[in-house]
Each structure stands twice: as C-alpha cells, then as structure tokens.
C-alpha cells in the first residue's frame, strides 16, 4: 500500500516509489519536486524565501530556496539517487494579493520562483515543467514513480504537469 507523505511549510521530505509526496495550499511559497527517474526516488521541498544569505536567522535551512535545494539533493543522494539523473518540476510562487506595493516582500512569490530557477540552473538540474505565478493557491502531489506532478486549485479542475 503506497503512502502520500505530507510536507509542511518550510519543510522537505524524500521517499521511494510507489509512495508520493504532497504539500497543501502553496501560496507565494514554491514547491520543488525532484527525482531520480531510474530509481524512483523523489523529494519535495516547500520553501518560503529566496535567499538564506541575506537573512540573519537562517538556521532553518528548509525555509530558503538555496539551502532548501541543497538539502533536498543531499537527502535524495542519501536515499540512493544518482546525482546525474536528477530532474525537477516546480509550482507555486503566486501573488496572493493584487495590490502592487512598494514593499518587495509583496512580490516575494516571483522572487522565490526566480531564485529556485537560478539555483537549479547553477546545479544543472533540468527543470521539466512549472506552474508558477498568477494569483491562486495550489495543492501539489508528486509521484516519484512516473514524475507526475498533480496540481489542485480552488474552483479549477486539477491538472498534471
């Protein structure tokens, strides 16, 4: 019997197929799904902020795009994934409130997405698909077995990327 493992805010989990991973109600945060397709080993990280180096208290590594992705990879490797085969999909980074304020924290969704992409590119991990931005929340479910990344939003049919 396969299990769906829940990943909280500023959290990350890894698993092996046929188990899956989910994170509920992603808003401006970004969910990063990653797997080794041959081994069926995958992980899901739920990051909140783009950059650990500009925050004083950065002890919670899962909270940031940069350190969160580093830790996601090391946990996948520890479970037996092959670094060279890793591939990713991402979702989230919405702007939940429409007003354009001068505060940069308002655009944090877009900055999160940008930071995640830059980090993946720097590590040469292919980004196969994304469903990011816009103004709605997303629940995601990731299946390392086939790499499907299911997305549910309020008032929309669910879809897979």
């Amino acid at each position, binding site marked *: 019997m396969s299990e769906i493992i829940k990943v909280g805010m500023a959290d990350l989990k890894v698993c092996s197929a046929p188990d899956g991973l989910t994170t*509920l*109600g992603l808003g*401006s945060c970004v969910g990063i799904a990653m797997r080794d397709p041959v081994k069926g080993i995958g992980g899901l990280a739920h990051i909140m902020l783009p950059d650990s180096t500009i925050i004083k208290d950065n002890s919670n590594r899962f*909270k940031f795009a940069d350190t969160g992705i580093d830790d996601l990879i090391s946990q996948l490797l520890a479970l037996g994934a092959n670094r060279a085969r890793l591939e990713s999909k991402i979702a989230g980074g919405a702007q939940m409130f429409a007003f354009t304020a001068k505060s940069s924290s308002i655009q944090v969704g877009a900055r999160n997405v940008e930071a995640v992409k830059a980090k993946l590119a720097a590590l040469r991990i292919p980004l196969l698909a994304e469903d990011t931005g816009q103004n*709605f929340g997303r629940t995601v479910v990731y299946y390392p077995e086939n790499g499907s990344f299911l997305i549910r939003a309020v008032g929309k049919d669910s879809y897979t990327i």
Partner: protein
Amino acid sequence: MALDLNNVSQQYFDVLKEIGNIGAGNATTALAQMLGQKVDMKVPQVKLLDFKEVGSIMGGEEQIMAGIYLLVEGDITGSIMFLLQEEAAHIFVNQMMGGMGSGNLEGGFDEMELSALKEIGNIITGAYLNSLSMLTNLKIYPSVPDLSIDMAGAILSVPAIEFGEVGDKMLLIQTQFTDEKEIDGFFILVPDLESYDKIMHSLGLA
C-alpha cells in the same frame, strides 16, 4: 531590543492580548452596527505557532478562507490580515446585504458580495488598528484593503513569509464572534522590527 519571535516575551503576549481584546471589542461594535444586530465576542486568544501548525488551527491548509490584507504606514509600518472561513464570510455578507445577496453559504462570491466583504474587512481591521493607535498614541494609516478567497495555507503564506524573515513562528490572535452560531475570526499583525520597538516603547515597556 530586536523582535525575536522564537523567544517572545510574556509581556509582548500580554500587550497583544490587550490590543486584541480592545480591538476585537471595537470591531464587534462596528460589526453589530453594520449588520444591524447584536454580535457578541469571546475573549481573544493569542497564539504563537510554528509555521507547520498554522493551517491546522483554521481547519486545515485547504480550508477555503477569505483573507483581507492591508499594509500599515505612519509611525509604525507592517501589515495586518483578517481571516474568516468561507462559510462565516457568507454569513456576514448575507447579513450585511439584508437579503439582497445570493444568500449562498458556499461557493463563490459575486462582485457585490466581494465588495461587501472588503468593507467588512476594512471595518474590522480599522477598529483593530484604531485601538492600537489609541493605546500607543502612534499614528497608524492603513492602506486600501485587498481580498483573497483561497486555501488557508496559500493566504497565510503571505504573513508567514513576513514572519519568516525574522524567525520560524507566527503570532496569531483568534477571536470568536458569536452570532446565531460561533464564527472564528483571525487577526495577524506583522509589525516590522522598528515598529515592534516603538509599540513597546510607547507603552513604557521597553
């Protein structure tokens, strides 16, 4: 003293509780006037929660909520959010519109209902900010409110990220309005670092 939410003082809790009490009291009065009927409230609870716990207190991360969010400027800067479950938002809106609305208790809100909901949020957060301003003698100007109806987790990500820049916990004030049925409202006040100092200072606590 900088704001360290991981070691927040009992004093700050008490201050917030008091602000929450008076603010919610004023909000209840304003709400009763607007709805044209009696509304009671219970003593608010102030909670300091891990990010992971925040969604569950509102009925799960996927619970559909109406979130009204506005920025605060003046002597203190930051943001304030007021949240209601979708059904509670419908109850308030239906009462405010006095039968002119759809009367729905679930599903989406039409244009008129959205604007009524924004007004409710405006009045409630306004009453809350007024109390804070009166207690501290600080000038506080709220921005135009913005509204989002979505999953609790997604709406809460906005203040959570603001708290996330200084720690791993979030402060929440839970108020229960009692009408024919109990309605939970949640306030989240995010003062920036200097504003926290100013609030404590003006109250003679720093």
